[in-house]
């Protein structure tokens, strides 16, 4: 019997059904039911009418936004310099920046905790700052790598053309390099922003006792309220979908702009 090409997809379909569709279905079921299994919107209404859960959303957003901003500020110059420099051991230098990623996460944060205690004295005095530092430390490689890859793949002839047509290096950077590296920045943002909203281990380990979205979900589950917890997870999922939708926009127009330049 000949294996038909389309049959090769069966394992993947099964995988999707088991690990994506089914969990999502269960998530939806719990989010829209109450303890006795009846349909309800109360979980949804409850989230948006409670100043504390809304506050958590804002607080998580704030941590994630500041983290992402700091990551972009730090990562772009590094990635740019590395990608455009002529040093031979480029990949080795990139590796040094990515190196912390290969060290166990909890070990890294524990080490960071000691360093910050040495610098700040009492960690509990600056919970927000510590959370941002911890997240930035943790997620920076995820920002550097995509930006570096995008910039190093840029066609150098575009910059030559810009120079030929009279653009100063500054103009060439702002009008050619930066727009063309947007896809890298965006994929970095999506890899940093969303995890930063839920990664509560960093907060736990650095003594920030305020809940963010991840810990809030956890607290609902340990109070056996799977319904409320699922609804919050679903709301996060909706936010992620929204962001992906918006990102599609800029990415395509970025590509368009690139096309226009050619």
């Amino acid at each position: 019997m000949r294996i038909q090409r389309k049959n090769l997809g069966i394992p993947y379909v099964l995988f999707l059904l088991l690990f994506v569709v089914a969990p999502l279905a269960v998530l939806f079921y719990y989010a829209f039911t109450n303890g006795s299994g009846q349909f309800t919107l109360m979980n949804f209404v409850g989230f948006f009418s409670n100043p504390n859960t809304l506050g958590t959303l804002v607080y998580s957003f704030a941590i994630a936004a500041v983290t992402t901003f700091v990551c972009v500020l730090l990562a772009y110059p590094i990635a740019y310099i590395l990608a455009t420099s002529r040093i031979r051991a480029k990949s080795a230098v990139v590796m040094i920046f990515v190196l912390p990623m290969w060290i166990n996460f909890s070990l890294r944060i524990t080490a960071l905790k000691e360093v910050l205690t040495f610098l700040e004295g009492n960690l509990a005095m600056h919970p927000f700052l510590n959370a941002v530092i911890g997240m930035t430390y943790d997620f920076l490689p995820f920002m550097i790598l995509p930006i570096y890859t995008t910039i190093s793949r840029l066609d150098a002839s575009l910059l030559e053309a810009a120079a030929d047509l009279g653009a100063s290096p500054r103009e060439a950077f702002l009008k050619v390099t930066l727009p063309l590296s947007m896809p890298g920045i965006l994929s970095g943002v999506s890899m940093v922003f969303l995890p930063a909203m839920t990664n509560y281990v960093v907060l736990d380990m650095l003594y920030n006792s305020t809940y963010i979205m991840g810990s809030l979900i956890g607290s609902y589950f340990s109070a056996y309220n799977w319904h409320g917890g699922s609804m919050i997870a679903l709301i996060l999922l909706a936010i992620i979908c929204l962001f992906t939708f918006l990102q599609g926009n800029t990415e395509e127009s970025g590509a368009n702009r690139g096309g226009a330049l050619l």
Partner: protein
Amino acid sequence: MYRRFRGRSLAALLVACTAGASAAAAGPALGVYAATESAAIDTTAATPDDAAADDARTDNTAAGDAAGNSTATADPEQEVTLRICNWEEYIDEGDWGEDEVIDLPEGDIFGENSLIEDFETWYEETYGVKVNVEYSTFGTNEDLYNMLTLGDTYDLVCPSEYMFMKLISEGEVVPLSDHFFDKSDEYNYYVKGVSPYLENIFESHTIDGEPWSRYAAGYMWGVTGIVYNPELMTREEASTWAVLTNPDFNKRVTIKDSVRECYFAAIGALEHDKLTSDAFLQDAAYKEKLEEVFNDTSPEMIARVQDWLQQMKDNVYSFEVDSGKSDMVTGKVAANYQWSGDAVYTMDQADEDDFRLDFAISEEGANIYFDGWVMLKRGINGDAAKQQAAEAFLNFISRPDNAIRNMYYIGYTSFISGGEDPRILDYLDWNYGAEEDEEDTVDYDVAYFFTGDETGSDPDYVLRAPAEQTMRQLGAQYPSTEDIRRTSIMQYFTPEENTAINNMWVNVRCYNIMHLPWWGWCLVAAGVAGVIWLIAGRIRYVRRHRED
């Protein structure tokens, strides 16, 4: 040894946090698959030999009756599988160093193999039946409960008192057989050795009208208290729950990230004046009234607790998951809310670095907690051979030498006082007794634990110990008669109370949007406007492309 609140283990945390949404999605999803997995692992069906002989029993299930029967006639061909789920690092895993022998007058005690392996060997030698233990662990009581809800099947689990109360009230638990309480069977180490003091508690506390002791066999117990650095804090300052809001220790005290522990501490601090008044302390019904105060879950009390906890949150260093012990030892904090077993471990660790830490039990009252074994209906499933093995396991770990091995290994205090067997008392003396030539010793009375007489004293149970030990490991492991009088059990929260208290907890832990400053609102507004603008742009873009 991160017993009661090992919290979320790191591996689970990493999974949970890398994608909050998808992790939460996967949680309930597991139930679907786990539920389809039948309890097919059960190996043997029991052959109750002479059930008719035990006609006297009426109040037990069939399985209970059968398990009560004598053991000699078990079929050697059979093999029993016992699925046990216990706290992480909560049993002697053996492999002791050679210098760790506990040399009691009655003989040496040494942990060569894990207690699980020793049990398997002992059971086969004693009853002629091969038993195969599938041992797994859980991190928190809530994790265990969720695991059970998701369909995990165990025969024997060891939750804390409030969780086994919850399981019993939900009808998930098989009662212990009458045979388990038969003192004439030489292998019934639990009933012969359990501390009369704790036995009284298990007899007098009920759930749905039935005493705990009918369902649960105690394993370890302890009290909550404050571990503190005596160089930074006086004993008086540490001996009250108000230490958590003491501005002198702003950001230098930690508390467990646990609703129940925080709730208890809050009541202690809020009711300080009442609880420490002479009238209250002298009251004939002191103990009952104390438990009433600490189990107040009225809406007014929940509101007051919320206010106090909010104030406390601003004052403490953090709500810690399992960093409290190391933060004490590294000197980051001056005091830490601890379970006595963890406190013993913390003080031991500090001693190794010549760093002294002490333990104080709050003057308002402390939470006394118990971890007890219960057999689950879904696991035992009427299988008498299995129930017999489960009860034999409880007896085996209650044999005084095994209880000592566990205490030595995990630092918590066993339920076993030994009964006729003097080894537990000897172990106390081995561990804490003063040297012959030692000065500054005190006579420490632990009679309540061995005789059950809460206020009595008995020269047979007086230990001559170094004075400082009463404020340290000894005082934590076997609290003094005065301290033990001020301990209160904390009941489990009913589903309604649980919802109300969890809401209170979320209110304490979350950032309240009403506290957002004006510029914060401006940023939120700008952010929302930006998103709307982007959405509009995206829609326009899609439309334009469709027209093209």
